[in-house]
């Protein structure tokens, strides 16, 4: 039950990972406990530091919308994604068409 999982090339041992996380967590707590203890809620220390810009009042202004995430990635792969999204037309008959296309391809590969 406590063995490793061998894969013929290496092994997987969840318990060493758990031990690693325990040790790492202990170290984090240790380092954290060495910090200053004079934090007070409601004082100047509570203020948000916003890169010396004026801090927005509302959370909405601070939020990054999901469609902006990985902007650079999608921009870099724009041709790829244009083709891929263009493939997903959403037309019901195209779904059938793709199915028949794959059937024909597999038939060609297996029968010929």
């Amino acid at each position, binding site marked *: 039950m406590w063995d490793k999982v061998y894969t013929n090339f290496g092994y997987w041992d969840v318990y060493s990972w758990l031990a690693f996380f325990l040790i790492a967590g202990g170290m984090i707590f240790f380092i954290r406990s060495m910090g200053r203890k004079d934090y007070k809620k409601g004082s100047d220390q509570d203020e948000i530091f916003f890169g010396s810009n004026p801090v927005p009042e509302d959370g909405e202004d601070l939020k990054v919308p999901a469609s902006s995430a990985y902007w650079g990635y999608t921009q870099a792969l724009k041709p790829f994604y244009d083709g891929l999204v263009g493939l997903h037309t959403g037309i019901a008959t195209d779904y059938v068409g793709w199915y028949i*296309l794959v059937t024909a391809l597999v*038939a060609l590969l297996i029968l010929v």
Partner: protein
Amino acid sequence: MKARIFFLISILLVGGLLWTGLQAVHPFGIPGETPMDDYFIANAQGEAAANNVVTSIVFDYRGFDTLGEGAVLFTAVISVAALFRKRGHN
């Protein structure tokens, strides 16, 4: 538009696939060895006591398929009823 030409070609290819398959099954009207069907024909009266061989297969030898078929019909009815259900009825 280009995709639809591919679709047309692939439909013809699938037709060809089915046609090659159909060429390879037994010729029309001359099935080869049929042990299972001969068993049904010979034993439907003795085992299931039914004159109609098809009914004896549908309800006795393959009765479970028929239950499944009834379940499909039931499913379709319930689905249609769920689609056209009255609002607020819980």
